[in-house]
Structures are given as structure tokens and as C-alpha cells.
């Protein structure tokens, strides 16, 4: 058994979820960008100095040429941050990232689509888990953008309907029917019965929780860890419960 000599692998390859700040470029002006970021770093050096950031060019009308992108990246560096990739955009962005030798961070795909208004009540949500960010080192969580509150849904969610609360909690005052789906990037609170599916932490927040006052779910998921219920355990059926993640295990217990 000479394999036991060298039982440990040279490395572990693991996916992790990390928060990452995103620099959304609104206009092509390297000097102004540098000034702006420098101000942020000075204001909160703990948060921003040497912070890994991704550059999001999707809000520009035209994708700038390679030289300009180089200048923008340099502006970020000289402000004291470390650009580690480009946020996902079009296939042009992809080609650009390849030429720059930078990774594309697919995680930002859903969150940075050029929708600036309030999220629609019923938005097509990413069905699968977003790919984890392939960053080299775990870094500080992305700065919280203040209290964004929660999305309220008055009444029931009917079969076939889908509610997505982007970047926030979701509160449903009625029931979620069989075949209905409620999804939130934050926590989910359901004050009626849950007979359909509930998915919290859709962008990978492992601290997200689901609270249900009458549990009969088809499926619950938190940050991609899910459980389906062909048969609802007798001690949970019809009870008020909460669901949370303990490591990679999805826990459900009566309240």
C-alpha cells in the first residue's frame, strides 16, 4: 500500500463564494476614475485599500479599445485597488478579457444587467446557481450599499408565477402554491403556506434564511444547497419552520 505514503493531494480545488466589489464605469475618463476611487480608498482604507475589484464596462455605450481599457485598469491600480477581472458582458467583453489576460467574472451577469430602475415584481430569475467567482484569494465582502429594505408581495403567489427579489429580502404575506417559485438574493419570509419552491441566497449568500409559517414545500434552497420533498416529514408538515445553512447542509427546524 505505497499509496498511503502520499495520500494527500498536492492541493484541494474548492469553489467558494466571495463578495467582490464591482467598479461600474459610467464614462471613459481614466483620470476622473482614478480621482473618484482614490477618494473612496481614503475614506475607507480598511474596506478598499488593495481590495480586489472587477471592472464593469457594460454601462458604456461602446466597448472601449484595448488601450483605453488598459488606461482604466491602470487608473484603478494607481488609486490603490487591485483589478482582478472584467464583469461579464457581451461576447465582445469576453474577447477583450482574453486579450487582456483577465478572467471574466460571470457572477456579475445577473446583478449588473443594465436595468437601473427598481427590479420588476416578476423577473426571470437565474434558474441555476451562478458560477462562483474564480478569484485568487478570499477578500473583504463587497461594501453593503446601505439598507435596501425588502420586497413585499401582498397576497398569494399562484401556480406558475415566479417572484424574484433582487439584492434584497422577500416577504410574501399570502401562500406560495404548488408550482409557484419565490426567489430572493436575501432572506425569504412567507406568512402563508409554502407548497411550492423557495430559494433564498440566490446569488450565493450562505447566511440567507427561509421562514415559513405553514411548511408544505416542494423544494427549498439556500445558496444553491437544496432539498426536495417527495414526502414532507411528519414533524415539519404544516408547522412554522426556518431553514438555514450549516456548512453545506441545509437545516430545517420548527420555530
Amino acid at each position, binding site marked *: 500500500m505505497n499509496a498511503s505514503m502520499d495520500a494527500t493531494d498536492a492541493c484541494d480545488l474548492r469553489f467558494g463564494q466571495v463578495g467582490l466589489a464591482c467598479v461600474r464605469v459610467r464614462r471613459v475618463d481614466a483620470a476622473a476614475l482614478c480621482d473618484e476611487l482614490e477618494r473612496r480608498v481614503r475614506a475607507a482604507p480598511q474596506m478598499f485599500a488593495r481590495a480586489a475589484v472587477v471592472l464593469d464596462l457594460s454601462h458604456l455605450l461602446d466597448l472601449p479599445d484595448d488601450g483605453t481599457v488598459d488606461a482604466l485598469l491602470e487608473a484603478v491600480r494607481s488609486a490603490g485597488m487591485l483589478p482582478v477581472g472584467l464583469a461579464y458582458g457581451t461576447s465582445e467583453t469576453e474577447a477583450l478579457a482574453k486579450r487582456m489576460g483577465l478572467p471574466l467574472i460571470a457572477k456579475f451577469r445577473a446583478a449588473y444587467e443594465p436595468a437601473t430602475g427598481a427590479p420588476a415584481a416578476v423577473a426571470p430569475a437565474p434558474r441555476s446557481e451562478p458560477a462562483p467567482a474564480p478569484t485568487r484569494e478570499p477578500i473583504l465582502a463587497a461594501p453593503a450599499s446601505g439598507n435596501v429594505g425588502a420586497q413585499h408581495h401582498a397576497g398569494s403567489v399562484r*401556480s406558475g408565477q415566479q417572484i424574484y427579489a433582487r439584492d434584497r429580502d422577500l416577504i410574501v404575506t399570502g401562500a406560495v402554491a404548488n408550482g409557484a417559485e419565490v426567489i430572493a438574493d436575501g432572506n425569504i419570509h412567507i406568512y402563508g403556506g409554502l407548497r411550492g419552491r423557495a430559494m433564498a441566497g440566490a446569488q450565493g449568500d450562505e447566511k440567507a434564511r427561509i421562514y415559513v409559517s405553514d411548511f408544505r414545500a416542494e423544494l427549498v434552497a439556500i445558496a444553491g444547497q437544496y432539498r426536495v420533498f417527495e414526502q414532507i416529514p411528519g414533524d415539519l408538515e404544516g408547522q412554522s419552520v426556518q431553514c438555514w445553512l450549516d456548512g453545506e447542509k441545509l437545516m430545517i427546524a420548527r420555530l
Partner: protein
Amino acid sequence: MTAEIIVVTSGKGGVGKTTTSASLATGLAMAGKKVAVIDFDVGLRNLDLIMGCERRVVYDFVNVVHGEATLKQSLIKDKRYDNLYVLAASQTRDKDALTMEGVEKVLDGLSEDGFDYVVCDSPAGIEKGAHLAMYFADHAVVVVNPEVSSVRDSDRILGLLASKTRRAEKGEPPITQHLLLTRYNPARVAIGEMLSVKDVEEILGIQVVGVIPESENVLTASNNGIPVIVDANSLAGQAYSDTVARILGEERPLRFIDVPKKGFLQRVFGG
């Protein structure tokens, strides 16, 4: 004065939409209202059979939608009630023969002609025909059977009524939803073979407007082209009468939802 538009819908097929449309329209006419009932099930025309006017169909709904006939030519007067008219579907066309503008034109025309109620008999499913039937509605009667697949489909329909209709799109007050439980068999509910009224109300989160007991009179009446509501002796007919009264705003207790108690003689002699 505009006509109140009532859609009778369900999602699932075979639950009793057409039977309900016929009895609802007839019941409203019996209450003195001027009523038109339209068959939206283009290609699978049935309403004319249940209303007993299949041999009098000359022009149909599709003809009017396409401007090939006037409303007056196409409306078939009921043989029992003077204030009741049927607009039959076309059996030779399909659902694509209907257009949003055409349907709106027909409904507006009926309003102008002084109709109080227009009952729209929706086809099964959630595709074009069903969508057009519900789009302009003010009231919806969602027909549901006491079994799980029907209940789930009704739930889907309730969601569509709240989002894919003119009232929803224009932000007007929502459609008044009425849940009608048909084919209800109290004996089978008692032994757990069927969902109870309470189960269905709980799952769907709305109250029933009526419960129609399962009854052979329904089939007999349909085959004879007589809406079952006309048969005042049948339990189903009485239950439909109650339902129509409730839709018109009257309060009536639910009947026929418990297992009938056997009388003394029946208990002694069996039966």
C-alpha cells in the same frame, strides 16, 4: 350602461365549464337579465349542444369577428327565455381565427345592444382561446373539481386572471373571482377519496361561490340540450340557482355538501 363580462374558465378540461356557462347564462336570464353566452372553444364547439340550439346555428362567433356576419344575424335566441342569446363557436376553424380586436368589437357590440351580462365559455388550457376569453372579463367563475390536478390548474388560472387581463394591464380594480366547485360527492369526501370544500378553499385561498353536487341529472340534461338549472327538481339545478343568486349579490347558505342523512324508514328498511 356597459355589459358585465363573466368568463367561465378552469385551465383543466372536462370539469364542467360549458355546463356551468349554460346554467349560469340561463340562471341570469331567469332573473330577468338580458344575457348573451359566447362559446370561445373554436374548433370544439359544444355550448350550442348543451343549450339545445345546435340545429339553428347559421353564423358563428368567428364570422362576426371577421366581419362576415353581423351580431344580429349570429345571435341565436334561446327557445325558453326571450332575453337569452347564444353565440356559437365555429367547428371548422381553430383558435387562431379569433383576434383581440375582433373579440373586443363583439363585446362592445353586445354592450351597445343593451345586454346586461355576457358569459364567455372559455376553452380548456391557457393558450390563445382561453386568454381571449378571460382578457376583457369583469368577473371570473373558476370551475374546479375536488381533485388535485384540477385544483392546481385553477390556481394557475387565478394567477393569470390577476396578471394577464385587461383590468390587470390597465391597473383597474381586479377581476372579481368566484370559485365554483363542481362534481362534488359528499360521500366520497367523507371517506377521504375527494378533497373537501375546506381543502380546496385552503389550497386556493379563496371562498367558493357554490358547490354543485355530482348528479346524473347533469348528463341527462346535457344530452337533451337543456341547461341543468332549468330542472328545478335536480340537486345540481338547485345548486346552480343558489350560485347565480350569490353572484347577483344574494346571500344563501351552501347546500348539498354533507352526506344526506338517511330517514327513519330508510334506516329500517335499507335504501
